[in-house]
């Protein structure tokens, strides 16, 4: 990154750098839980998706869901990471009402996936973020404190759901990078179908590690971990607030305590949850109910052969094959649904126009209506028809916008709109000449002014001619004939 785009926090002639590492908890896309056959469907009635294993009844034993293991391997491959052929499930012991076993089955010393990387497309170039590891673990249930005034209620539907914890190296340096990193991670997993990345449903959450140091310093400062932040916006707010808190302490000559903190979204500040001294002793040890997880090279190869084209590769192809700018390509590949939509549109229509229409008009509508591209009110099929109408000169770009506005209402076919409303572009030179003659006749004073050197008036004549044609006149033709008439 170039110097001028560095994210630094200034204090009396001093500049502080912010060091960020993320532990992202991504829910594995799977019908059933990590160690039981209960459903993982979101939004079910409380405690309706709970097996005897999930509720930790006496004598119940975990049995690994192989599909979740394959999903983790797939994600590891997507992160260009090492897949560990042998990994171990450990018990992380602690007491809580929504943790029925009294321990969480996780992976501690030997995770299923080792080091990898994620490439970020930042405005001034690419940046590589290291992945430390990815491991599989069970989610806990949910404690609900606000239904009953005297009791905490527990919903175990989530208990035992498979999570991937993806730990980054402390390579992130700004809230912007965190934004791009999370989106990229989410994009890769959505391409792979291993996590839906739905933050509203809690499918993607993160623990954020923050430390600060004076610019130029090479040692890391003491870090604090902000637990369980569930949106990118809150992650960014938490980082800014936490970094400033730490800098304030340093400026006052105080030490930073290594601790776990919580982000209070209402007050926009972090507060201490527990200090290092109070840290849980989780007493990790290998779960004796489960054998070490052994993965064959054949399985890894089989999964590799099923890996779809990922965002980085797709971007390269879009640039090489379709001559898109890196910026356009980045936008179009950022989400698998968007790139699928784009590729569907360009099957039968012009790439350049498709790029402009999707990133322009369509995105504007989606933004305005707060919709995902999968909910697009205009289908790829009809958008490609519209583009073809522009391309073959049936309608002008301007008319196309009018047509598009109507298409939004129920995904209407542009052919029908153009036909019914008579919006077909007027491209008959004689007809154009006729209406231009009319404009010249009606504006003889302006013609005189133009001829005496007021060139700017040309636009006025174009506008009048377009108005005369009710917007349907072929702009190129109007230009051409007007020039001939006025200059001739």
């Amino acid at each position, binding site marked *: 990154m170039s110097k001028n785009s560095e994210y630094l926090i200034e204090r009396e002639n001093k500049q502080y750098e912010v060091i960020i590492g993320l532990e992202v908890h991504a829910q594995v896309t799977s019908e059933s839980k990590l160690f039981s056959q209960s459903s993982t469907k979101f939004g079910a009635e409380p405690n309706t998706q709970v097996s005897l294993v999930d509720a930790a009844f006496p004598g119940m*034993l975990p049995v690994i869901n192989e599909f979740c293991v394959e999903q983790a391997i797939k994600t590891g491959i997507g992160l260009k990471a090492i897949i560990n052929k042998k990994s171990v499930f450990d018990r992380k*012991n602690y007491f809580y009402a929504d943790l029925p076993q009294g*321990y969480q089955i996780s992976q501690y010393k030997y995770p299923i996936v080792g080091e990898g990387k994620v490439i970020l497309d930042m405005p001034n170039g690419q940046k590589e973020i290291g992945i430390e590891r990815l491991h599989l673990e069970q989610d806990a249930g949910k404690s609900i404190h606000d239904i009953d005034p005297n009791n905490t209620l527990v919903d175990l539907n989530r208990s035992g759901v498979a999570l991937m914890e993806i730990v980054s190296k402390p390579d992130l340096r700004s809230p912007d990078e965190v934004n791009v990193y999370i989106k990229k991670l989410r994009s890769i997993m959505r391409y792979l179908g291993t996590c839906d990345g739905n933050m509203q449903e809690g499918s993607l959450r993160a623990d954020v590690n923050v430390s600060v140091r004076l610019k130029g310093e090479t040692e890391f400062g003491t870090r604090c971990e902000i637990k369980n932040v569930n949106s990118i916006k809150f992650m960014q707010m938490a980082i800014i607030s936490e970094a400033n808190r730490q800098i304030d302490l340093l400026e006052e000559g105080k030490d930073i305590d290594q601790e776990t903190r919580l982000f209070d979204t209402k007050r926009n500040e972090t507060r201490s949850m527990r200090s290092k001294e109070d840290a849980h002793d989780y007493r990790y040890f290998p779960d004796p*109910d489960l054998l070490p997880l052994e993965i064959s090279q054949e399985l890894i190869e089989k999964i590799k052969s099923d890996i779809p084209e990922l965002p980085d590769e797709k971007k390269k192809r879009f640039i090489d094959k379709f001559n898109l700018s890196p910026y356009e390509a980045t936008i179009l590949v950022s989400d698998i649904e968007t790139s699928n939509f784009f590729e569907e549109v360009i099957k039968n229509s012009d790439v350049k126009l498709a790029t402009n229409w999707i990133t322009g008009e369509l995105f504007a509508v989606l933004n305005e209506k707060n919709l995902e591209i999968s909910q697009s009110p205009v289908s790829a099929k009809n958008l490609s028809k519209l583009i073809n109408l522009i391309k073959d000169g049936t309608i002008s770009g301007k008319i196309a916008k009018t047509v598009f506005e109507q298409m939004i209402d129920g995904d209407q076919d542009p052919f029908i709109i153009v036909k019914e409303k008579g919006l077909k572009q007027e491209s008959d030179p004689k007809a154009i000449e006729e209406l231009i003659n009319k404009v010249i006749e009606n504006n003889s004073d302006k013609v005189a002014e133009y001829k005496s050197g007021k060139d700017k008036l040309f636009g006025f004549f174009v506008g009048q001619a377009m108005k005369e044609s009710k917007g349907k006149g072929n702009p190129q033709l109007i230009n051409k004939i007007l020039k001939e008439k006025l200059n001739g």
Partner: protein
Amino acid sequence: MSDITSQSLFELTSNIKEKKLSSGEITKAFIDHAEKSKKLNVYVTDNFEKAIDQSKKFDSNPNFDLKLPGIPIAVKDLFCTNGVRTTAGSKILNNFVPTYESTVTQNLWSQGAILLGKLNCDEFAMGSSNETSFFGNVQNPVGENLVPGGSSGGSSAAVAANLTPVTIGTDTGGSIRQPASFTGTVGLKPTYGSCSRYGIVAFASSLDQAGPMTKNVRDCSMLLEVISSFDQKDSTSIDYKRNCYSKELSKDIKGKKIGIPKEYRVDNMPDEIEQLWKNGISYAKDCGAEIIDISLPHTNYALPTYYIVAPAEASSNLARYDGVKYGFRSPGQNLIEMYEKTRSEGFGDEVKRRIMIGTYVLSSGYYDAYYLKAQKVRQLIKKDFDDAFSKVDAILTPSTPSSAFKIGEKTNDPVSMYLNDIFTVPINLAGLPGISIPAGKDKNNYPLGLQVIGKPFDEQNILNISYALEDKINFKNDISDWWLSE
């Protein structure tokens, strides 16, 4: 025909198949005997009414192809039984009724057996005398105020006192073999992975195994055949070809190499145990076996290793008994207070002691010195056996360093209690099969057992050796019915 309750499983199944006895008659005989035997305190929960109904049902439509046709069987209260209270000998599960069945007990019912009831045991199988049970001591039918061993003490007493034809126990460090030895009965701990752990209240997952407890070796082979099965619900269950143990049972052990480990000659071992072992060796020779002196050099470390590994796993396994979901709850002002009160009141002293030890050895700063080191020693112990089994087919040792002791004698001295398991724990640590058979008596006329240890999955071999020795030893358990009441 001898009294019904004193018949072996083999005799009862033969009599049922030959229609000399009905399931109803047999079931009623055991229930009647139990009604008069309450003083032994073997039952935590009886299932008598349902058992009578089920025996009638069997008799109305008998299936003689089954391996346990209409045979009533009581089981250790560590096996979860669908609709029948399962306590694990603990107050914390006093009111717990499972809605599911353990795989091992399901295997019994699938072969025609009928549940008589749930047998007393040490709390969460932690104990060697049945004295840690919330439901009180079990009397050893061998003599009044004598412990029946543990943790499967209710099971061993029930078999010895003819209150069930056979039973199943669980063995984490000797909990089948030691009580068998104390009561003059046969008890086998199968290879780890042979019997499913699904539905068995867990003590130490890497050591726990269910196994048969019977009057004789043949019954033992018949029962093992039924309960041993591969089970996908237990990730540590092993898929291998299991023998028809009873069909292949044979006294021909000619040429078998039997190892005698010198390290099992412990300090202060009573002379009568030494003599018992010598007798066993000479019987084996008489049967044509070859006796070979072997060394298991890490034997001394087995007990301390066991008392790190087992409590470590137990401390985590028992975390689920927290008063939140099922079982006993003592209310508190907040979650922490509820936990503290529930677990303080719900668990007994021995369980708490082991949870404390386990929590300690897993704590950061102690993990490497205790748990990790114990795991390494466990590998060395395993390797001792691997090396020995390259030279011999089986190993013969005493089952316990002493005979049954008096109730209360060792309750204030946990270490002396733990020493009871000195000959049995190495077998669990190594995951091997081991069987205890009655082999003699001490000066008080209390039974003593010999243990035969086998290679992994070689249950057939140790059953055969035991079968041959049993024949030579010709042990008679003379139990007077001192406890009977009208």
